[in-house]
């Protein structure tokens, strides 16, 4: 009998894929922005099922609370809202699909054919503290470089978004 856990897992997996389809194929850009919420949130639920709760929290915090608001602000500022539904040119759809579907075929073939050597009984060290200590002793350099990357992104984006100078 499929227990409740797998029902929820399959539901959020399907929600992620279907809202991603909506993001791509909806004509009104603001509708696709709002359906991005469903994608990001269902991905966070999938992270929780993969016992990565800190990554799920950061995913909701940054993607839903940050990047999506950034997209909505950009849509507001670039007057994208007044056009009710832009006509999507199907001329370029064919090459895009012709490229993407064989790629999907290759992915699925690789996923189902290769036998990944799986760890039998998975005992992950639960909890965020083990993630934190791993982050700070093995991945210390990328952690410090991330702050420099953020500084560069901040200065660059502020320079670009400063009105007035042509």
């Amino acid at each position, binding site marked *: 009998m499929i227990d409740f*856990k797998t029902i*929820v897992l399959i539901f959020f997996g399907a929600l992620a894929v279907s809202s991603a389809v909506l993001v791509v194929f909806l004509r009104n850009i603001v509708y696709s922005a709002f359906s991005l919420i469903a994608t990001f949130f269902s991905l966070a*639920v999938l992270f*929780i*099922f993969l*016992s990565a*709760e*800190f990554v799920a929290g*950061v995913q909701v*915090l*940054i993607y839903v*609370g*940050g*990047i999506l*608001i*950034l997209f909505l*602000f*950009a849509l*507001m*500022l670039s*007057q994208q*809202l*007044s056009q009710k539904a832009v006509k999507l040119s199907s001329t370029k759809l064919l090459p895009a699909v012709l490229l993407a579907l064989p790629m999907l075929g290759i992915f699925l073939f690789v996923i189902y054919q290769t036998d990944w050597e799986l760890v039998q009984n998975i005992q992950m060290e*639960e909890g*965020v*503290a083990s*993630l*934190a*200590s791993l*982050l*700070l002793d093995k991945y*210390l350099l990328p*952690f*410090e470089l*991330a*702050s*420099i990357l*953020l*500084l560069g*992104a*901040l*200065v660059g*984006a*502020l320079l670009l*978004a*400063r*009105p*007035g100078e042509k």
Partner: protein
Amino acid sequence: MLLDYFHVLMMILVAGCFVPLILFFGKFLRPSKPYSEKLTTYECGEEPVGNAWIQFNLRFYSLAILFIIFEVEIALIFPVFLIYKDQVSASFSLGSVLLFGELIFFVGILILGLAYAWVKRDLDWIRSVRIQ
């Protein structure tokens, strides 16, 4: 661990169907006599003119940039702060001083970013137009 998040899922479900339930039950009690004037958007009684989506200027966006960069920084600081207390209260070893140094380096770089935005007057809401 999954049981806790089962509570969260149930809460989202209950809150999600709380709103339509209330609105649905209210539908029988509520009068519903919509006529066209009532359904126009409200503009202090005037005729609604033009389209609602007017042009904003960019200071909204520079605010959103500042927000997301500092939000990402806070998300990255969470793990450091989690293990800071156990490391520090153990003993006054070199490890705790190093951890403090890493923390100061990370936070200091981003305070530089805030100082840059402050000096370049990106933090002002009403920007005095610099007349070249």
